[in-house]
Each structure stands twice: as structure tokens, then as C-alpha cells.
């Protein structure tokens, strides 16, 4: 079991969460070319090692979180809210 430290709920089993996907994807503008959109939607770096990924705390606070986790050992380095404004807010709280 992976334990994820949700910034709102505390440390919980990963079975409370659902895995989203790669958090490093930057979606292009709506009028970007088809190949840019193809890259964003279909192509992945598929990192072996630490990667930024999204998890949804579905059976908890239902917040989307950005987790930095190793895809080899499953060790977690950091957990924060996905939304940049919420990230700032959590920083202020500290």
C-alpha cells in the first residue's frame, strides 16, 4: 500500500485515491496545430524514476493532488494541490 499525505486530510492509504496521470502535461492553446495536440494527449515520457503525477482523493476530500513519486520504489517526495492558486494558499497557511 502506498501512503499519500493529503495536504487537507493527512496521511491516507492510496486505495482512498484514484490515479490520474502525468502532471507534467501542458495543454496547448485551442488553435494550436494538430500535432501539438496529438503530443499533449497521446504521447508520454513514461519516466522510470521520480515523476509528477495527479491523484484524486476520491474517497476523502475529493481534491486533485500533484504527487511526486518514484515509479520504481513508489517512494513519495511531495504532495500538493494541483491548482496553482490553492498551492499558494497552502503555502500561506504554513
Amino acid at each position, binding site marked *: 500500500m502506498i501512503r499519500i499525505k493529503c495536504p487537507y486530510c493527512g496521511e491516507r492509504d*492510496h486505495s482512498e485515491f*484514484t490515479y490520474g496521470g502525468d502532471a507534467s502535461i501542458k495543454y496547448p492553446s485551442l488553435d494550436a496545430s494538430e500535432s501539438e495536440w496529438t503530443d499533449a494527449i497521446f504521447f508520454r515520457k513514461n519516466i*522510470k524514476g521520480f515523476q509528477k503525477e495527479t491523484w484524486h482523493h476520491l474517497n476523502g476530500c475529493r481534491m486533485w493532488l500533484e504527487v511526486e513519486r518514484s515509479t520504481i520504489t513508489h517512494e513519495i517526495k511531495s504532495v500538493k494541490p494541483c491548482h496553482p492558486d490553492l498551492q499558494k494558499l497552502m503555502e500561506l497557511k504554513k
Partner: protein
Amino acid sequence: MTKFNAWNVFKNGLNGQTGWSRQWRDPEPQSSYNVIIIGGGLHGLATAYYLAKNHNVKKIAVLEKGWIGGGNAGRNTTIIRSNYMMPGSHEFYEHSLKLWENLSHELNYNVMFSQRAHVSLFHSPGAKDANARRYNTMRLHGTDGELWDLNTLKKNIPHLNYDDARFPIIGAAVQRRAGNARHDSAVWGYARAADSLGVDIIQNCEVTGITRKNGNIESLQTSRGVMKGNKIGFAVAGNTSLLWQMAELGNLPIESHKLQAFVTEAVKPFLDHVVVYGVGGAHFYISQSDKGSLVFGGDLDWYKSYAQRGNLPMVQDVAEAAMAILPSIGRLRLLRHWAGVMDMSMDGTFFICKTPISNLYLNAGWNYGGFKASPASGWYFADLIANEQPHKYIQHHHLKRFEQGINLDERGAGPDPKLHG
């Protein structure tokens, strides 16, 4: 290499089994080859075999970083079927099934292919309709497929939970020619047959670097020295992205996810078919091995990972699915469970294609379906490498299909690799 036949069995019975030679050589790597296949799993070995057999290619090497068959070839649930619907994939998997039907003779090695039927249960009128459509499509293409009503199903498999399942069983879609084979035998059979045609199988040989020159791959750095190959094939599902980036080719429509499989203690003959169950998000498949163990599996572990070990929540999920349809196995103990790393592709379908590098060929993205596909995968990958032209069955199984709007999405799950079970 001594051929297996009645005479040799008889002769060696008399001389104390001393007349058998080793099954394949253990050659020192040469400095150059015509074709180098990276990955000594079923796909790589089958590719090497058909390159030598169908296309008469000489000087072929298969490089394996561990031992042959030690990756996903040894980590699957050995199910073979061809109940696919998408154009191309359907013909491809049907050809694979036909190759399995004759594989023991072809390789002179018993792969223990058992056509015990694949029984896919359904639990709702919607599932029944969807299966009727799929199995009718299969029949129109000449593959066998039939629908069983509840009475036929009860007669064939009396010990499923027909009484108080949360989702009542109402029938099944059945492919009778489907079944299981012995995974190690298939690996050893292809290795032995390829070796006898002169293929060098080089184990403990990990590719650590790729040197490019004028757009081509010039040589490979490996843990056993530098090797040149006129043509290079990747067949390393699970680790495709790593080699792809080693060749400086960027990103792929693939994520690596792990899938677990489970084996119980052995019991007397209990289950004559491959039984599959899928409802309400659960997914479960089970069969009995010739040793008597029940072999089964379920969903992915749901998060991206390269770890070849599974998590416990999935053990519970799979056990719950098992108890939902076969409560009679509740007291069996699990002997082993393990995980393999899958290439999960963006539409759930594989890639056998050319690449931006003119002497590099890609075989990847097998999702859950690599084992059954391996003979045809080898067949068509060898064909592509030898003839430089994809066969019409695999004409859309390339990396540009997403940009062209050709999604071969059998399940209709969309561009999320973990959803293509």
C-alpha cells in the same frame, strides 16, 4: 539438437537418457549481425524464428538482459483467444490462434496448447447485446464464437455462483477454439527452433547505449560488448520507452503499468474452461493449470509503475471477484502472486511498425494481450523487418495513427492507458 520423436524417446529410454543434446547453444556475441532483436521474450524469439524460417535471414541475434522468458513471458496467465473486433486486430489475433493450433508440430516442442474454450460471462442485457455484436462480427470473419444461454452455461460449468451473486449471471459468450498453453514451453520451443536455424540467443546482455550515425543506428553498447546490426528490432514491452529514449526518439503513446497474476495450491480437476468475469468495474479471469493450480488475474494496479511487484489492495479486489463467481474456491490458499510491467498504449492496441530511424523497427504496446499474440507478433514483425513493408493486417498499427484519427480502441475507453484492460 536432438529432435523429439518416438524413435529418440525409445532409444534414449534404453541408453539411460544420455543421447539428448542441449536445447540451444550459449554463443559468444559476434561483433556484427544482419538483424539484432532486443528482447528475448516470446515476441523477440518468435520474430527471430520467423525471420530465419520464413525469410531465410542469416546472422540474427536476440539480446536478452536477463534470461529468456524471465519477463512478461513468465508472468502472464497463459490465455489464448481471438475474440477481437477492430479491423486488422481481428485478423491478426485469429492468425495468431491458428499458429498456436499447429505450434507444437511447427517447433517440434510440446507447447501444451489446450483448446478448452474461453467463456466470458455476462450479467446484463446490455453486455449480452454487446457480446452478440462482437461475436457475430467474429463469425462473419470466419472465427468461431457462440452465445450460451443460462441452461447451457449451467450444464457446462455447474459450480459458478448462480444462486446469490450480486450481479446475477445470465449467460456467456464463448470461443471454443480458445484456451491456454504452457508459457515456458512456448519460450523454450521458439528458442530451440530459432537456435537450430542459426539464431544466436545471447542472455545476460543488456543494451546500455545506442550510437546513431547519419540518422541510422550504427551500433549498440551492451553489457557484453559493442555490436553492430544492419537492422535493429525492439521487442521489450514494459521497457520500450527507456530504449526509445536511449535512441533519442522522444515520447511514445505508451505508459508502463503493472499487472498481477495469482496461483493457488493444486487441486484435482475442477475447472475445464477459461472463465472471464467483468462487471461494475471488476475484471477477473481464471483457469486451471495442468498441475492443478488455479491461475487467475484481474485489473492493473491502477497507477504507473516499473516495479515488478504488486500491491495488496488489488489482491483483495481479485479475491473478491473470485469469490463473487466461484465461492467454492474460498478455502484455497494462494501460493504465489507476482506482477509484470505492461506497455499500456493509448488505445489499447499494439504497435508493429517502422520508426523515424530507417534501420530501427518497433514491436511494442501489447497491453494485457501479449502472450496470445506472440506467434503472430513474431510473424508480422519478421515480415516487416524483412520486406520493409507492413502487411495489410498491421497497416494501421503504427505511431502516427493517433494524429491521423485512427484509434484502434477495442474497449472504447479513450486515451488513458490504464483503462485498456
